[in-house]
């Protein structure tokens, strides 16, 4: 199990994390000068530099980083880790780009925001790297602490405070549940290391009931972070109350990190699938149905996207179930690979689509009042055609209509589900996606079909947010036609 310890190599492995932490520290140290600087984007630029550095380290690791097992086996590199970390860093960059104008307009363009963002992101990356449930727990906390505070970052906004409080209390509750799960897993096997658990499970040297109970609680904790129904109720409230750039960040990052762990558990603890597959299926269906159905009733886009996030979490649970199912049914290795790469691809697709959608809202918001409701978008195609059609592309992608990345992602999940013989889930996914199409189309309809007395476009739309919109909308279409461009990244997941 243990290799010769090469401390430097191990530390080199966490350079991407260290880059973020150093960036955070630098931001803190330079807080004063930065705040005094006239340009509002100074902190953001520094944070962006940290993210870039982190990405550079990650890229430089290349294939070497794929085989590292570090710190007593608590973290390790593999393709899944690498791809998830890359996606997370890209999301981080987009989130940083969205923030400055928005926050500056509200007088909160503080370096601390970026400190929290960077540490939060490092927590998410840790979850992707983690091979030990303790590190998973610590990663979740690291991820969440930043999010709790960022949600209430604009303190004059009572809604932000409320979002923060709700998110915090429920998040802490969920962590407690998950912690107890980890405790039970530990008690049943004597270890929290996933590799060790895997071999223990194979050797059948675990106490199955305690292990299963623990695993169930861990599942619940992760489901909370990923906003899977019925553990999703924080998300609409938190999304609505949090400032737009924060909503964008937390909607994406928390989900990706949680699913990174879920995918890893589903892949590693294969022999136990028979016990928790039913629960995964239940959560998948519940999440798809609840998310999509309730989204129909939403007028507020942030809430709608929250419910859509719940639904997408459901789709991802389908992939997880398919992964487990293909293990349980002893399917060919390639189906497991497909399920994993499908899930990761979907995470990427979701990240681009959701990030892009929030970017559009941020872009339209500019320095004014938050653009939140459908009514705010009315007639956008006349005011800002590029943003409107970009949003349309993103919405169609979220709805899974070709030729968009959302469709390619959905196709992969169908693929995985069919390969894993989860036909019921596949059909359910197909049916609810019709409901989904309804509310996504409603956004398009409001923007493009409805006409208002077109007021002149608000001056000073944030350029950085505009770039995020442009990039994500283009990516949605280009990758929807040629997902192969990304397959190099995704295809090596296993």
């Amino acid at each position, binding site marked *: 199990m243990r290799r010769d310890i090469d401390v430097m190599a191990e530390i080199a492995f966490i350079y991407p994390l260290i880059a973020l932490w150093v960036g955070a520290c630098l931001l803190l140290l330079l807080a004063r000068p930065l705040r005094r600087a006239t340009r509002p984007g100074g902190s953001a630029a520094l944070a962006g530099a940290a993210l870039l550095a982190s990405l550079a380290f990650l890229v430089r690791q290349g294939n070497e980083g794929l085989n590292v097992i570090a710190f007593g086996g608590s973290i390790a590199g593999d393709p899944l880790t690498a791809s998830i970390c890359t996606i997370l860093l890209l999301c981080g960059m987009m989130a940083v780009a969205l923030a400055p104008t928005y926050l500056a307009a509200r007088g909160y363009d503080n370096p601390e925001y970026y400190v929290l963002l960077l540490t939060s992101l490092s927590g998410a990356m840790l979850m992707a790297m983690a091979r030990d449930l*303790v590190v998973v*727990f*610590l990663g979740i*906390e690291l991820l969440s*602490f930043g999010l*709790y*505070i960022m949600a*209430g970052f604009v*303190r*004059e906004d*009572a*809604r932000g*405070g*409320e*979002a*923060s*409080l*709700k998110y*915090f*209390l429920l998040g*802490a*509750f969920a962590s*407690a*549940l998950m*912690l*107890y799960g*980890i*405790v*039970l897993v*530990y*008690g049943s096997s*004597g*270890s*929290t290391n996933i590799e060790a658990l895997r071999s223990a499970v194979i050797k059948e040297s675990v106490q199955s009931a305690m292990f299963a109970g623990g695993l169930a609680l861990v599942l619940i904790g992760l489901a909370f972070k990923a906003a899977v129904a019925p553990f999703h109720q924080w998300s*609409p*409230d*938190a999304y*609505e*109350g949090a400032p737009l750039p924060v909503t964008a960040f937390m909607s994406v990052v928390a989900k990706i990190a949680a699913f990174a762990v879920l995918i890893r558990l589903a892949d590693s603890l294969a022999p136990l699938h028979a016990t928790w597959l039913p629960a995964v299926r239940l959560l998948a269906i519940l999440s798809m149905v609840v998310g999509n159905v309730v989204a129909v009733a939403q007028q507020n886009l942030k*809430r709608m996207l929250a419910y859509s996030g719940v639904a997408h979490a459901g789709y991802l649970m389908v992939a997880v179930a398919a992964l487990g199912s293909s293990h349980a049914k002893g399917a060919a290795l390639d189906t497991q690979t497909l399920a994993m790469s499908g899930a990761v691809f979907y995470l990427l697709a979701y990240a681009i689509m959701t990030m892009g959608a929030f970017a559009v809202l941020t872009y339209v918001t500019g320095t004014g009042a938050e653009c939140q409701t459908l009514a705010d978008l009315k007639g956008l195609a006349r005011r800002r055609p590029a943003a409107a059609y970009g949003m349309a592309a993103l919405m169609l992608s979220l709805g899974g209509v070709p030729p968009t990345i959302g469709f390619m992602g959905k196709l992969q999940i169908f693929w995985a589900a069919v390969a894993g013989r989860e036909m019921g889930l596949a059909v359910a996914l197909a049916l609810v996606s019709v409901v989904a199409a309804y509310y996504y189309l409603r956004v398009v309809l409001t923007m493009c079909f409805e006409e208002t007395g077109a007021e002149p476009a608000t001056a000073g739309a944030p350029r950085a947010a505009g770039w995020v919109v442009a990039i994500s909308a283009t990516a949605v279409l280009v990758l929807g036609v040629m997902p192969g461009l990304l397959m190099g990244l995704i295809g090596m997941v296993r």
Partner: protein
Amino acid sequence: MDPITATHYIGLSAILFAIGAVGVGIKRNPIVIFMCIELMLNAANLALVAMGKHLGSISGQMMAIFVMAVAAAEVAIGLGIIVSIFRSRETIDIDEVNLLKL
């Protein structure tokens, strides 16, 4: 009476955990809710220590220590949020902190 084994401790911890969980569901004061969560964490710690002893591994205790550290950081943030809410609203009753819904 039976000798006291790890199972007893775990049972006790589970009961404490359940009480804490109930508290989260029924209390209206966020500070108390937060205390209930602390109770749950403490319950987990008890189980950890008991399991560690039973398994002959120090990992249980190590984990318990980290849980405490996490709890400390959490308290800093949680109480900060609560105070911040109070400053802007003059109340922290969670039934009144209810702008976001539906």
